[in-house]
């Protein structure tokens, strides 16, 4: 038993900070590592809101319906107990955030306001304008700052996670990280470590993700033996503004507030989603809306001006309503596209947005599917002592995530992971401080050597050009419509990139604030993870949620109602398949 264990959380977005708060609340010290100041984490980009079935509008909504729609939205690939726990906890989570001071939009009576969202017919989404993620992250950032002022939390910002430290028994005993200013590589012992580093969108070059979302930390521990699950399930969001540097999200809340999608056909607007889905209209789940847009643009060739563009139209809604409920995203469109969406339809196209897959994690539930809160198994990876929470874990969303469920899952994941880390660490017989120094020194040395090797790269390839090419290969072949021959070609291209990586010209020998070396190291990790995504997609011969193969157009539960488990080997990912926990809801046809 360890009375006062040491904990580390890597990543300061919503899931990471919530884990930190739970740990600190238990009186246990916590060190937080983040590539950027935590207040600048990618969670700020979430726009539309957070789901919770509070039913303030008398529609008869309930957590049970939320649970059902989440599982159905994910095409029955989610392990059901965790999804159930998340939906049942959701109202309490939104109340907690409200108590923390999140400026949620209000009804005239001063209560929380809720709006509709994709994949549901209920008003279930609490929101703060259209910058909900930013407001939620700030609330947690403030609570963590309070613990920081009390001395319980210590932040390491502008530090990059390099690897976990594993002892002779394969137990995680801390991390190795690098100061991105001084470039110092240091070991930090800990009894429990949580990876909360978000998704891998940057593997696809341009996506809606922030620049830090490379998946590098997840890939690093995958290469150390952590299982990566369901990697092939990548959500492509239907509506983003294409850009030179990134694709900027246009929140689903635009459609929730009445936005309509159309393209011109025979000189008239054709509302293609409303025509095909009379019940859900523009609010079908994202994978479905995205495929329809692809069909309209690529097969019917009806994109606006013959391009990969469709209209997202808000111009029929009063400007005052738009400003109050969608202000933040209208501002983004005005600033980056230069037009006023209150007056002219927005020009949008789908973009890579979210990874349903991620590090494999465990959980403990009773016979009725209730999660055992505080169990050390919750959110623990297959490496003892190493946990994962947030977009970086593979749970909750199955094969497709519903809008406004990501903020919720981050929050819930942190609420489970923090206490799990504390009870795991307290139950250890040997603390990290009793682990031989040679264990830490060996891992530090390994990272020093990698760093030195990258600093010495003097070939002819430019890492940023290589990354751009990687993004193009992945976006063209491993997103919305997948064919086996193209997936195989993509994997061959990835192998060629790995070869070219070794011939990079690092071109920056500075031992101070060297971004080129850090990026090049992450690029290798991106390539390793890209193979997991690509080969997982190649192998899965069915269509489910975001994974769509025209040659295998149907869901095949008999063969593929299974979680993909990827384990790293020197010659590439080894794929195995495990059953999904469907003990609470029976799979059925997914119709909208």
């Amino acid at each position, binding site marked *: 038993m360890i009375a006062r264990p040491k904990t580390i959380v890597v990543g300061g977005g919503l899931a990471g900070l919530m884990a930190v708060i739970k740990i600190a609340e238990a009186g246990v010290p916590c060190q937080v590592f983040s590539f950027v100041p935590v207040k*600048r984490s990618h969670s700020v980009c979430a726009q539309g809101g957070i789901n919770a079935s509070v039913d303030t509008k008398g529609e008869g909504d309930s957590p049970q319906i939320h649970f059902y729609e989440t599982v159905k939205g994910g095409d029955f690939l989610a392990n059901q107990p965790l999804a159930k726990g998340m939906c049942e906890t959701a109202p309490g989570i939104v109340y907690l955030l409200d108590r923390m001071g999140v400026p949620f939009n209000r009804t005239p009576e*001063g209560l929380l306001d809720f709006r509709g969202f994709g994949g549901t017919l209920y008003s279930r989404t609490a929101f703060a304008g259209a910058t909900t993620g930013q407001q939620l992250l700030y609330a947690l950032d403030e609570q963590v700052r309070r613990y920081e002022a009390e001395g319980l939390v210590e932040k390491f910002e502008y530090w990059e996670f390099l690897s976990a430290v594993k002892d002779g028994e394969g137990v995680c005993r801390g991390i190795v990280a690098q100061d991105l200013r001084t470039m110092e590589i240091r070991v930090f012992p800990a009894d429990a470590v949580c990876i909360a580093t978000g998704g891998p969108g940057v593997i696809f070059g341009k996506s809606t993700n922030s620049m830090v979302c490379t998946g590098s930390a997840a890939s690093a521990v995958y290469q150390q033996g952590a299982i990566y699950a369901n990697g092939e399930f990548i959500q492509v969001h239907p509506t983003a503004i294409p850009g030179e540097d990134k694709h900027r999200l246009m929140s689903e809340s635009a459609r929730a507030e009445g936005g309509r999608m159309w393209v011109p056909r025979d000189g008239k607007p054709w509302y293609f989603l409303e025509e095909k889905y009379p019940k859900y209209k523009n609010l079908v789940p994202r994978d479905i809306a995205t495929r329809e847009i692809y069909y309209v643009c690529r097969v019917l060739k009806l994109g606006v001006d013959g391009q990969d563009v469709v209209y997202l139209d808000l111009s029929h809604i009063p400007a005052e309503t738009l400003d109050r409920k969608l202000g933040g995203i209208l501002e983004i469109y005005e600033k980056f596209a230069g037009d006023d969406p209150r007056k002219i339809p927005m020009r949008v196209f789908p973009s890579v947005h979210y990874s349903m897959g991620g590090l494999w994690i465990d959980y403990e539930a009773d016979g009725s599917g209730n999660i055992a809160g505080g169990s050390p198994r919750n959110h623990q990876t297959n490496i003892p002592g190493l946990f994962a929470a947030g977009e970086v874990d593979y749970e909750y969303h199955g094969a497709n995530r519903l809008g406004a469920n990501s903020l919720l899952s981050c929050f819930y994941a942190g609420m489970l992971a923090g206490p799990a880390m504390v009870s795991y660490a307290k139950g250890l017989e040997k603390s990290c401080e009793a682990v031989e120094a040679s264990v830490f020194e060996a891992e530090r040395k390994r990272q020093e050597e990698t760093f030195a090797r990258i600093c010495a790269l003097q070939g002819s390839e430019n890492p940023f050009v290589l990354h751009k090419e990687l993004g193009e290969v992945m976006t063209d072949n491993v997103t919305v419509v997948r064919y086996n021959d193209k997936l195989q070609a993509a994997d061959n291209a990835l192998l060629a990139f790995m070869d070219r990586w070794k011939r990079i010209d690092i071109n920056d020998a500075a031992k101070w604030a060297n971004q080129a070396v850090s990026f090049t190291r992450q690029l290798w990790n991106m390539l390793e993870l890209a193979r997991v995504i690509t080969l997982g997609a190649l192998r899965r011969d069915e269509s489910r949620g975001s994974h769509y193969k025209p040659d295998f157009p149907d869901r095949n539960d008999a063969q593929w109602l299974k979680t993909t488990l990827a384990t790293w080997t020197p010659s590439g990912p080894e794929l195995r398949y495990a059953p999904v926990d469907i003990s609470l809801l029976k799979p059925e046809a997914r119709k909208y």
Partner: protein
Amino acid sequence: MATNTIEMKIKRQDGPNAPSRWEEFSLPYKPKMNVISVLMEIQRHPYTKQGVKTTSPVWDCNCLEEVCGACSMIINGRVRQACSALIDPLHQPIVLEPMTKFPLVRDLVVDRRRMFEALKRVHAWIPIDGTYNLGPGPRVDPTVQGDAYSLARCMTCGCCLEVCPQVTPTSKFIGAAAIAQVRLFNMHPTGKMHARERLEALMDEGGLVDCGNAQNCVHACPKEIPLTESIAAMGRQTTVHVLKRLFGG
């Protein structure tokens, strides 16, 4: 402006104690570019206008949607976010410099830790009892929510400090951003209960009295946060607080 190239001049500095230098770049024009995408192009082709190979410039950025606050820099003499700085309306050569009120790290990267320290100093948080299920929060008037939201969008980007004559690399002034956050938390039904400690912090060294009323902050804020109005409001709150402290009440 119809040109075939984008001309850019970047102030480079290898570290806090290294000398600075200017480097010029010339890139093929593409429509709808922003400063970040030009910097990304330079990364892919790190040659100056004169054809000399150089290291790629180092800068801070993350979300590229103007919500994270990372990419503040001085662009053509004006501090702003590089992501929302579209190329087309900018006069060329486009001149990039790091902010001057914060310690320089490298090239366009500066260290804004003082801003986060200021938030700690003024207790910019709601002191909740715990993260347990304690039921719904207080009811809030929709207009108060609207006011709070406009303050809560502060992304600690540093533009307001950069333009403030009272902020220097050595001065202790906490700046407009932190003062506006005090107003935000003192407005909240729960935060109000602890308004006193935040006001005390504002009355400390480097607090409200250091504001010189130049009013540059409110014009520089990319999120149009009512900064001067907030400074005035906090002036009133601290005055009332002092009177209460003197005469009881």
